[in-house]
């Protein structure tokens, strides 16, 4: 996808751009706020990466101005200010996601993917389908090959989250934030255990496995693996 990266830390910007290019994205780099806003207004991008604190024009201000002109481009805010409350500010200003420095490239890539995808598909679809696994968000019902699967409320939420990101890599942090709204590291491998329970529920006894572990990144729910 085509990404606008507004980041004043040149070296950080270089490493990030290089990493993202290697993943097959097209990156345009701008190093200050003014230029960032101009580029965002004139160019066409799948997603914007904005540093939170930029010379001349603050990252949050760019988000606000873009949103004020009706732009719906997905925006990921990068910040060295990582507190829950800063994060809330960023999202309130109109950002779609917020990632703290230092970040993992895999984490950032996964989040960009999720953002771009969300733009294309509406999140309001209530019936989600992947292979023979079906989830009805309204009826709160899950079936695999027509057979009903009983899940706890959290397991259901977790599966719904994974299905809405089907085919994408979701990181542990994304799951932690998206399903539990926790913004801290639970230290133990709690997410892994939750995933393995869900896997037991939806994949056990089926030849085709849907829930996969992506080494060094997270998990993905997909039928082609």
């Amino acid at each position, binding site marked *: 996808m085509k990404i606008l990266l507004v980041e004043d*830390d040149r070296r950080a910007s270089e*490493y990030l751009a290089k990493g993202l290019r290697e993943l097959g994205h097209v990156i345009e780099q701008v190093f200050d706020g003014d230029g960032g806003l101009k580029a965002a207004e004139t160019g066409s991008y799948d997603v914007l990466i904005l540093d939170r604190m930029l010379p001349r024009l603050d990252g949050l201000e760019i988000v606000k101005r873009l949103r004020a002109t009706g732009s719906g481009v997905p925006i990921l805010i990068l910040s*060295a200010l*990582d507190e829950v409350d800063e994060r809330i500010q960023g999202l309130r200003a109109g950002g779609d996601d917020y990632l703290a420095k230092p970040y993992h490239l895999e984490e950032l890539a996964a989040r960009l993917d999720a953002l771009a995808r969300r733009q294309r598909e509406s999140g309001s679809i209530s019936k989600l389908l992947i292979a023979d696994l079906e989830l009805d968000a309204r009826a709160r019902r899950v079936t695999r090959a027509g057979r009903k699967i009983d899940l706890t409320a959290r397991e259901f939420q977790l599966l719904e989250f994974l299905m809405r990101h089907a085919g994408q890599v979701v990181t542990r942090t994304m799951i932690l934030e998206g399903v539990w709204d926790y913004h801290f590291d*639970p230290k133990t491998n709690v997410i892994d*255990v939750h995933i393995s329970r869900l896997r037991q529920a939806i994949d056990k006894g089926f030849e085709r496995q849907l829930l996969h572990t992506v080494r060094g990144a997270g998990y993905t729910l997909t039928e082609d693996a």
Partner: protein
Amino acid sequence: MLLAVAMVAVLGGVYFVTSRIIATEGDQLIALEAQGLAEDYRDRDLDAFVTAIADRAEDPWVRGGVYELRGPRGDFLAGNVVVLPELAVQPGGWAEFEVAVTRGDANASRRIRARVVELGGGFRLLVGHDVQDRGAFRAVMLRSIAWAVVVTVLFGLFSGWWLGRRIARAAHAIGDSAGRIASGSLGERLALTGSGDEIDTLVSRFNDLLARVESLTTTLRAVLDSTAHDLRGHLNRIRGAAQDARRTAVDPEQAAATEAVLAEIDRLGTTLQGLLRIALAESGTAPLEDVNLSAVATELADFYQPVAEPGQLTVAIEPGLVVRGHRQLLAQALANLLDNALKYGRGTPILVTVRRDAGLARLEVRDAGPGIPVEYRELATQRFRRLPGSSGLPGSGLGLSLVAAVARLHQARLEMSDAGPGLRVVLGIPLTRAASA
């Protein structure tokens, strides 16, 4: 009260001394007159002496003198009272008696104090003075003193009550503000009454102190933020470089080395993050809102449930306990406690309880593991401190420090005790007014 006691003592003293002086002086006057008359008796002939006594006795109530002269056989010779035969007083002794007096239409009884002297040759003379006024004076004085005491006590009580109320009000205001400030509203100031009294001085000093605390905290927070920002930026660049190096590494040894560097950077990042969270909680600048502690605890226990052995983690949570707090920090503190219980409890049963306890939401996490010896409990909440024997287990040494900082942010006490066996950690967080009602 002390004032009243002191007053009674002083006035009592005055009363005692004054009545003593009056009594002594009066008695001296009588004694002098009696002595003078006794000398007259010796110097003059008897008839002249009797006439002189009769003269003195003629208008007794003008000078207030009382006289009675009796001959050797007890016969009445002169005087204005008739009391001597009934008085059982030795010569030279003192007597007190009542005498009925008619003045106009009024019949009154006067108190007399008198001395009886032996004149020689069997003659006896009584010389007395009206001391009715002495008693009256004493009564007036007593009454005045009583009134003075009553008024003083009443005034003392009133001013004490009034002053007490003023001080209590000021103390309440200061206490309330201190509470709000402790939970983060550093902009808080106390209102001056404008009276310029001691309480106003105190309040204005208190406000100066607050301004100083606020400016220090703001500076500290700014330094913290900019340092954190800077460090994170550096760490991010280093991570970018390391990640780049790993991707391009062809030599497996090089790849392994950069992998190790990345792991260290991540550990450093986690530690920095942990320290900053603690600093945030301790700065008291984290925004607070109403948080359903029961729900947070239920969710968190549910979150950790799959990591525990079946049946190991049980909860007893009273629903709907709302506290003024920071949801993320509370959840993280509880997560640290659960993580510790799972890690150090070594598979023993873990119980999470939340219940109402005298205006507090009492959150308790207990395990039945080896616990923390008393001498290490205080140490355990300090940064980077890990207990002996835990070096083999993963951990940063920041878990309980964060719990302690979050406790302070919520004006809660963190208590660690022996669960016999195991560790019991208790946080008592004040309920919101609505929740405690």
